[in-house]
């Protein structure tokens, strides 16, 4: 009886609770960040950020504006290279390879896709948008055709656009454009997808569509999403990192990183609790 009463408890534990779901199969660290500090010229933007992003999970980064969450995100695919005078120290390991020092930047960015707040579709047809990168990478047309379809299917856009692949991408609605942006980045088959406020320009309906999509993608991709919408972080993510700007240093730091369910129920840090319960500042 002892024995066969266990099952009553076991399966349940896994179901509802991300942090426990995380334990079986996937969920080992995909990106390891250690003592990461970041500077724009003189002023420090991040200090000693250390945490691990689990594989094939959704990790949310939340915090008030100016806490450096976007900066952190842009470290993972070295987007900050665009800004001269931007400098990072510490180590960021993607599958054990050092991101900060790698010379193989293009490979890195194909491995770590990114979706931005504004979908900014390329001024070309829907198909060409998805095919753009593959073409430049010189894939053969059959493969590209294949990829276009797959990517659009995975981004839950195929059914809506399959009859109008040659329409200009700009003819899509905001939500569709954002899903197109996702398809575009899926096309180069990344392993990690960074999302920077992907829904803040969308209405609730489109937003929930994207959130569902993320839940789907999670099965195959490691997703990191930055959002200032706490509820969204709570809804979609398995793990949550809470960042805050250090009042003295004026630099952002990682306050707490935990399974989402825990962070929103039993935050370990005063400031986290203050923030998520809206008693902040």
């Amino acid at each position, binding site marked *: 009886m002892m024995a066969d009463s266990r099952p009553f408890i076991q399966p349940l534990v896994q179901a509802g609770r991300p942090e426990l779901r995380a334990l079986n199969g996937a969920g080992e660290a995909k990106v390891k960040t250690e003592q990461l500090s970041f500077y724009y010229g003189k002023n420090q933007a991040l200090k000693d950020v250390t945490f691990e992003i689990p594989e094939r999970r959704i990790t949310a980064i939340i915090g008030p504006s100016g806490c450096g969450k976007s900066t952190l995100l842009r470290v993972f695919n070295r*987007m900050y290279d665009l800004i001269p005078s931007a400098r990072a120290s510490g180590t960021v390991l993607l599958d054990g390879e050092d991101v900060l020092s790698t010379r193989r930047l293009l490979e*890195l*960015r*194909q491995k770590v896709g990114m979706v931005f707040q504004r979908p900014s579709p*390329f001024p070309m047809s829907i198909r060409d948008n998805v095919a753009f*990168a593959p073409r*430049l990478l010189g894939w053969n047309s059959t493969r590209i055709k294949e990829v276009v379809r797959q990517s659009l299917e995975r981004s839950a856009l195929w059914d809506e656009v399959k009859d109008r692949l040659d329409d200009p991408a700009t003819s899509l609605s905001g939500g569709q454009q954002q899903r197109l942006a996702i398809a575009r*980045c899926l096309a180069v088959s990344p392993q990690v997808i960074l999302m920077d406020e992907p829904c803040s320009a969308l209405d609730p309906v489109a937003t929930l569509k994207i959130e569902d999509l993320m839940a789907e993608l999670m099965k195959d991709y490691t997703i990191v999403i930055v959002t200032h919408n706490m509820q969204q972080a709570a809804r979609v993510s398995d793990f949550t990192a809470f960042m805050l700007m250090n009042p003295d240093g004026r630099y952002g730091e990682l306050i707490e990183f935990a399974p989402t369910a825990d962070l929103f129920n039993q935050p370990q840090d005063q400031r986290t609790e203050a923030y998520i319960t809206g008693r902040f500042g």
Partner: protein
Amino acid sequence: MNRNARRRYASGASLAIVYALTVLALIPLGLVLWFTVSKGFPSVLHPEFFTNSFRPVGVPGAGIVHAIVGTAILVGLASLMAIPIGILGGVYLAEYNVARWASWVRLASDVLVGTPSIAIGLFAYALVVAPLHHFSGYSGAVALAILMLPIVIRTTEGAVALIPNGLRESGLALGLRRWRVSLQLILPAAAPGVITGALLAVARASGETAPLLFTAFGNQHLVFDPNGQLQALPLTVYQYALQPYKSLQDQAWGAALVLVVMVLGINLISRWVLRRQLRLASSL
């Protein structure tokens, strides 16, 4: 209430004044066009006007074909020099505008736009004519090129800058090389704007007189050799208009009309292109 009534009244009055001033502004501008057309029309009616070149006063069938050809050659050469350089420069300014001295480049080209064309004429003279000891179409083309260059640069930059940064980031985030993103993604997106710039520059150049006065200098015969003196439409207008002879003055008006039609034509086209650019950019 009483006060509010006064406020409404004042507002209404000032609105009326603004409208009035607008009308006032339109009158002279309208007149320019009206007279160019009405006075130029008669001479344009004769086909020889477009087939023949200079005839001495009194000899009928005078035309301005030499001027048209000259302008074509001058502007053509100038475009060859100015447009490619201008576009590349513009793209560079917009794409790599982080470089410290980019802002200086920008300032320089702006200043260049504002530099008196006559001075540029002098420059071309000193640079080309003086050493070669003879006026030439080349020197004129150089002058015009210098006029066009900053226009192309700035309009190109403007068009490229219009493309939202998101496009650039998205491109790079896909793991594409910087220059590929610039030239294969951004520039195509900005193409219409760039074309507009080029067209505007052409229009401006084809209307300029001052820089040609002592470079291309002018020529009464139909010639195609840019190494020699060349006639140009604006020159024709300028020279004939100051002549005491009615017939030449009429030809001047005629040439003016041709010039205006040409320039405005180019402008309207460029405008149409530009509108498409703006619609596109705003939808990105």
